[in-house]
């Protein structure tokens, strides 16, 4: 059985790095591990052996049990069309300006692409562990609601709204002038645009059965996945982390841990400057102990208010460019609950 680990959190907190680090750790425990990543920094991508952009998992050249794959929302949508529509419709969709726009701009599209790929990899049963770096989204659990939103989109809800009734045949759109609502929309948007959008939505609708079936599979895999939330001690990502803590249990699992990245050691709170230090250094030490105190308070409040298992990952000012340093990031000191994540020596399948 494949263990799925979803790494969630706000953008800009080092989620991609931590997902990569957890994957390296897992591979080194002897588990065949795939990390699915979104938009990694160039040096991190290089470290993961992802110099060539590819949505197919690539084995790492130096780490025998590690694979990595990068996500491309546009490519994944094309795959959806290919899988669930007739060949000629799929072709028409792939070249359709609205399809291309929706694949890039539909709020849930990147999340849907990530979830779809991740589930494909989990179902392949080729890995013991699949670590998914979830894309930054509109906030909270968007990643988990993406399958149903997608099903809604292709299911014709939009079509029904546009036409104000049950799904019509293609030619009904040409009677558009009969419907007052469409006349109004046409006067604002131009009737030509209206027709083209409608044509597109009709094509998209033919994928509905496939997409909604797939959506249920995706939701099943996600509901069985382990989750962690990554944050820093800054107010905005913490607010986001709180949302995840509240919302995740309903769609996946209670987060096994909240990982505070860029953490300063508690021992810094009491730090003092040795006698004879310059005012400049005194000031610096005062600043960093204040910062350590602030971080400590934020973590303590998070843990007591949300009953969270708080784990810290130290501040690493330079990017991690080799696997050893990545593995060390979440190694012994970080104290991650590996066993409850299903990533431990005992999880190695025989």
């Amino acid at each position, binding site marked *: 059985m494949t263990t799925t680990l979803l790494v969630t959190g706000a953008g800009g907190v080092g989620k991609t790095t931590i997902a990569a680090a957890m994957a390296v750790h897992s591979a080194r425990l002897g588990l065949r591990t795939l990390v699915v990543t979104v938009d990694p920094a160039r040096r991190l991508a290089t470290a993961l052996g992802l110099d060539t952009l590819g949505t197919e998992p690539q084995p790492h050249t130096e780490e025998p049990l590690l694979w990595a794959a990068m996500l491309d929302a546009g490519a994944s949508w094309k795959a959806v069309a290919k899988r669930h529509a007739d060949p000629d419709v799929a072709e028409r969709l792939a070249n359709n300006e609205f399809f291309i726009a929706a694949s890039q701009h539909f709020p849930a599209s990147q999340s849907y692409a990530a979830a779809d790929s991740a589930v494909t990899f989990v179902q392949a049963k080729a890995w013991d562990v699949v670590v998914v770096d979830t894309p930054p989204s509109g906030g909270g659990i968007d990643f988990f609601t993406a399958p149903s939103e997608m099903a809604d989109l292709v299911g014709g809800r939009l079509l029904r709204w546009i036409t104000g009734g049950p799904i019509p045949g293609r030619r009904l759109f040409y009677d558009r002038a009969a419907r007052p609502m469409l006349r109004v929309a046409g006067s604002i948007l131009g009737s030509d645009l209206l027709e083209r959008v409608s044509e597109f939505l009709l094509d998209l609708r033919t994928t509905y059965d496939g997409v909604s079936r797939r959506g249920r599979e995706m939701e099943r895999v996600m509901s069985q996945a382990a989750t962690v939330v990554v944050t820093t001690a800054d107010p905005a990502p913490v607010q986001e982390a709180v949302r995840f803590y509240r919302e995740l249990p309903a769609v996946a699992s209670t987060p096994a841990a909240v990982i505070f990245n860029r953490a300063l050691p508690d021992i810094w709170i009491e*730090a003092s400057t040795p006698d004879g230090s310059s005012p400049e250094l005194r000031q610096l030490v005062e600043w960093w102990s204040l910062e350590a105190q602030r971080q400590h308070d934020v973590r303590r409040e998070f843990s007591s208010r949300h009953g969270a298992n708080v784990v810290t990952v130290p501040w690493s000012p330079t990017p991690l460019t080799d696997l050893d340093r990545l593995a060390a990031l979440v190694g012994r000191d970080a104290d991650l609950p590996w066993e409850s994540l299903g990533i431990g020596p005992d999880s190695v399948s025989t």
Partner: protein
Amino acid sequence: MLDKRLIVVSGKGGVGKSAVSGGLSLLAQRRGLRVLAIEIGAARGLSSHLSAGHLDFQPKEIRPGLHAMRLVRSEALLEYLSLQLRVPGIGRFGAIARAFDALATAAPAVREIITIGKVLWEVREERWDIVVADSPPTGQIGSYLRAPVSIEELVPSGRIRSQSTWMRETLADPDMTQLVIVNVPEELPTTETLETTKWLEAERLVSDPVVISNRVVNQVTDNSLPRGTAGEMVALHRSIWEEQQTWLSKLEDKGRIPYLFGVFTPGEVAAQMSDHLERIL
């Protein structure tokens, strides 16, 4: 910068866009301007930085001279429809609004023009000297700034098209609009900032966007390294400084806001931001 009518604040997620927007709004208010601060979308960053409580579509005065609102597309759309169709009681237009919203989901630029259009309508209002828009991140800002142009390309006729010209002109007018990109001197944000500025230069949608660097640590001139914990702190500070220098050297910035050590609440952050911005601008 505060002599402009509109300041659009963007940047990669997590760099402190809302804090800078909050700081700019407070600074403009302190200088006696009538300010409207707009929070765009679902994020609540700006309202917490302005300690404004819950914001909604109707601007609310949170300090003398400073109003704030939250721009949600569906409400902007209803307002737009009721104004355009000149019919009171927008409730009756629920069905049209839903149809329209459906179109906006599928059609590129329609979604964005409704949002950026509302911001620009507010800029036209005599009530405000300046509008500060805490805008979508750099990954998306392009499609908002380009929305009027995209509409002109995509929509051959219709009312929305006829309004896109003045919108495009307002955004491009250096006396009217200033785009501020907030950056943190680290690899990912800097790469994204550079990509965005390069794209903007090619597209000529706004003139002379400026970059403000955030969370910048100062250089330590004392080269000694104390023993123990103090030494660890100094070492971390120096290596952050060094890494930041690499990225600061890659772009030209209008000013730098220092890392705010030990500052707890979003309100405090914005207040300190406004002091630093005063020095920069």
